[in-house]
């Protein structure tokens, strides 16, 4: 094979610490290398054209590019060599940027290491074979996990684009966190007024099937052909019959159930519909609080229900759905702020979270929109907002900025003044992050028009003083101690990955970061893709986001799905395992270890042999390292290909 080697300067990214010309010169002496050069930006159009020209001029049979990580540009260059008529797998990359030039400044060592990496790449390339994709049919349905605003947006865009959508929502209503909000910044428009119609659209869209109060049990298959097992949790109410009339709620004698929707501000009934605009508007029984289910006594709801839909015997139900793509929009949860002893650690009823305050502000909330202290129901006068609770704080393992708290605090301060004109709000903050369109103007309004006192500093202690809370902090701008007698303290609690996010990631086979937020395919160029084909991200599951960003990402994910489904067939990745039937002895070890069930037994002239189902094989290569005979070889990562790399590096 005649090999061409292109060593990229990447401007000065590589060239500054690697002598690329020397690398190219060394490469010229490697076996098979017929052409080697260094180029300024190999990935640029002229850079790619140079590769194409060299392939044609020197009749190259394979190309090595020494530049950045293959995770960045392998696809780019594969297309380049394909443009010149080569098979895309007759290409290898040597990562001399992320793995060399960026991690040390010793030019001699870096150059030498780069030469080694290019040697390794050329040796592997010598063992590469052209590989060809197969086409397979796809199921043009999409699963959206999570019915918050991001999921709703993705589902509606997909459904409007003509796709069948399956939406699975963990709680008994869609709407997510946004449904709990009173108003939204920076426009101060009513949250449910803008979200409500979208929720209704989901319910009414002919292309959308909604499974509320359901969870993902199992995911099998691969892009184009996923098989999803959905667990419909028992609601004890037959939703086909329930009309959402609410009589059961009125009559239910068990009125101490946790009100999750209202963030624990007040209690609800054991059988409940979370809020009037819930979609689906169906009742469900909280089995922990229903005396019929816990003690076998009561049964009032069954008696009063006009449609006879109560079923105390209901069991979880499993449903299988087949889809071709998945949008994950599982959102976020609030950080457990009780770790902050200085804020009372949860002991003071009048220290509440921002989201609880939202419920309090909401006209449909437990207080009917009146701001009342949880302890005594009195209207507060002095209200202290504390920023960055569980954000930008390494000491609690949350070093990142949640990003939207500055804004909602400003909004809440403004709304407070609207509700209680006599009140005074104080905001303890670290920095004000208001980088969106009209955001900074909004925070300024909170300060200037609504007379909110912004104090740059942290609160060191809150302790009770009579029926008030003494909030002591520092004003770092003035260099002085500040004390506020507060009637109510609202904590801007940061976002963390939703509970169970990592478990779902394992089922989806996608990665997540240290904090449990899902990893996008590339931080800049693949913000909604994941590294698992056919799985996309929308909203705060990827990282904390405000509403506009979540909606944008929901639409982006939908666009990706629509793009994926614009073809009737997909091309399989040919980096799959194949069986050398001569070597195979039919012991079935590969079948035992394949995580996908992609290998089956077959019979050949009376002998048992293994057979790989190409479209199911995902190319992990577990079979290859399991087979003692070397009979199953993962294409593009065969034993000989890896051995050639080992030998290139280690030759005494």
């Amino acid at each position, binding site marked *: 094979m005649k090999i061409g080697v292109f060593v990229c300067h990447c401007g000065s990214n590589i060239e500054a610490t690697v002598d690329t010309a020397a690398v190219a010169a060394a490469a010229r002496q490697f076996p098979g290398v017929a052409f080697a050069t260094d180029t300024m930006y190999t990935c640029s159009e002229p850079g790619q054209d140079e590769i194409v020209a060299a392939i044609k001029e020197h009749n190259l049979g394979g190309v090595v590019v020494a530049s950045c990580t293959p995770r960045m540009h392998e696809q780019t260059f594969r297309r380049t060599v394909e443009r010149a008529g080569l098979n895309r797998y007759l290409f290898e990359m040597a990562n001399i940027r992320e793995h060399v030039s960026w991690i040390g400044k010793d030019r001699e060592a870096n150059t030498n290491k780069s030469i080694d990496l290019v040697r390794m790449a050329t040796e592997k390339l010598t063992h590469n074979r052209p590989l060809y994709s197969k086409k397979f049919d796809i199921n043009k349905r999409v699963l959206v996990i999570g019915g918050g605003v991001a999921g709703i947006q993705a589902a509606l865009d997909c459904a409007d684009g003509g796709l069948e959508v399956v939406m699975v929502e963990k709680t008994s209503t869609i709407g997510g966190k946004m449904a709990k909000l009173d108003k939204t910044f920076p426009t101060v428009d009513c949250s449910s007024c803008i979200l409500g119609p979208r929720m209704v659209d989901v319910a009414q869209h002919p292309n959308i099937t909604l499974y509320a109060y359901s969870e993902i049990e199992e995911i099998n298959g691969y892009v184009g052909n996923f098989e999803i097992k959905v667990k419909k949790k028992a609601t004890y109410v037959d939703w086909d019959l329930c009309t959402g009339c609410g009589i059961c709620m009125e009559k239910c004698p068990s009125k101490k159930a946790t009100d999750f929707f209202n963030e624990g501000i007040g209690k609800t009934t054991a059988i409940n519909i979370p809020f009037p605009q819930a979609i689906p508007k169906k009742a469900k029984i909280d089995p922990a609080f229903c005396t019929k289910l816990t003690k076998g006594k009561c049964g009032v709801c069954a008696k009063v229900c006009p449609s006879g839909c109560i079923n105390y015997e209901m069991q979880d139900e499993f449903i299988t759905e087949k889809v071709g793509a998945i949008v994950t929009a599982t959102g976020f949860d609030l950080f457990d702020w009780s770790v902050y002893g200085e804020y009372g650690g949860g002991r003071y009823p009048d220290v509440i979270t921002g989201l609880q305050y939202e419920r309090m502000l909401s006209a449909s909330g437990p207080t009917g929109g009146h701001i009342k202290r949880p302890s005594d129901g009195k209207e507060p006068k002095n209200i202290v907002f504390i920023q960055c609770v569980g954000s930008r704080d390494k000491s609690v393992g949350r070093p990142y900025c949640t990003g939207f708290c500055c804004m909602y605090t400003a909004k809440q301060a403004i709304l407070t003044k609207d509700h209680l004109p006599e009140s005074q709000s104080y905001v303890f903050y670290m920095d004000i992050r208001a980088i969106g369109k009209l955001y900074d103007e909004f925070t300024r309004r909170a300060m200037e028009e609504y007379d909110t006192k912004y104090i740059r500093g942290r609160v060191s202690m809150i302790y009770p003083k009579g029926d008030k809370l003494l909030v002591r902090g520092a004003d770092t701008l003035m260099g002085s101690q500040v004390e506020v007698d507060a009637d109510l303290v609202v904590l801007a609690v940061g976002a963390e990955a939703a509970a169970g996010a990592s478990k779902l990631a394992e089922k989806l086979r996608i990665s997540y970061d240290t904090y449990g937020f899902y990893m996008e395919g590339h931080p800049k160029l693949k913000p909604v893709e994941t590294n698992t084909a056919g799985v996309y991200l929308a909203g705060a599951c990827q990282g904390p986001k405000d509403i506009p960003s979540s909606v944008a990402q929901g639409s982006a994910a939908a666009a990706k799905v629509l793009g994926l489904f614009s073809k009737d067939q997909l091309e399989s990745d040919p980096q799959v395992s194949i069986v050398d039937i*001569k070597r195979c002895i039919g012991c079935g070890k590969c079948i035992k270890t394949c995580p996908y069930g992609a290998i089956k037994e077959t019979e050949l002239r009376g002998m048992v042999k293994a057979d790989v189902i190409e479209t199911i094989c995902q190319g992990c290569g577990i079979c290859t390292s399991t087979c003692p005979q070397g009979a199953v070889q993962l294409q593009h990562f065969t034993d000989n290909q890896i051995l050639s790399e080992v030998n290139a590096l280690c030759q005494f």
Partner: protein
Amino acid sequence: MKFQEELKKCISDVMPELDVVIGWCASFDPLHATPHFMRRKEDIDKLEISPLSVHNLATYLPGLRGKKVGIVVKGCDSRSVVELLQENLIDRKDVTIFGFPCTGVVDQSKIKKALGHTGNVESCEMSDTALVIKMDDKTQTLAMAEMLADKCSSCRYPDAVISDYFAGEKIGNKGEKDVDYAAVEAFEKLSVPERFGYWLKELDRCIRCYACRNACPLCVCRDHCAAESRDPHWLSQENNVRDKLMFQVIHAYHLAGRCTECGECQRACPVDIPVLMFKQKMNQEIREIFQYEAGVDPEATPPLLSFKMEEENITEKVW
């Protein structure tokens, strides 16, 4: 051997349904036995079971797949049969297993060491306790216990773990406990260069005949072994210790969780290289980490073909 006649009768009864029954018979001198393929009734007369019945006949089974085969097994041999069944390399319905209470087989190299050589053995009388060997006009008595193969002195499975017919009284299998890896542990106490040097020296004389591999009942790749293959190309054909040692590691690793330590690899080696130690080490690890022993349960899944989300006995390095 008291049970021998019972066994012969047993084989004779079943023989009409079988293509071949494999046992042992006398070989080129009185100190050796050889595998015996019985196809007719008169072949059964030659069957001899004794401490010279060293060969693990299970090695032949995969090559006879498709035929109805009877096999006489020592306890240790039967564990190889279990492994072959576990790996679908033989069909249970086609294999008839004859067990007997095994009191151990000799280690020919121990006898050779004791006598200086064994080139002229004229006769060899065996009892439970002694070997009486006539050679070079001398008669020498060797204690049987000292001549037994190491695997026999510490045998935990004297009776076949799986059999269709069992001749004689069972001795009683002790099962998997207190396995003695003293030899391995002693070797591991040597310094790093001592260990490295030991293998360089021992493997230098390897002639790459692959008797170790071919005698191994679980080396089932046979004609497609990595040793001679160019794709995959693990080894060169050059006479160097690196590739000889690498082959031993390949063999040992491919046997991890499968090897029953029958010792055929080492016994077969014509130049007496102690290659069993590699497998013993592997087995010791398998036992300690996964509490697993090969060749006991045909339905078991060997540890390297399975996993646990939380591994109790793996402590990962902390950086």
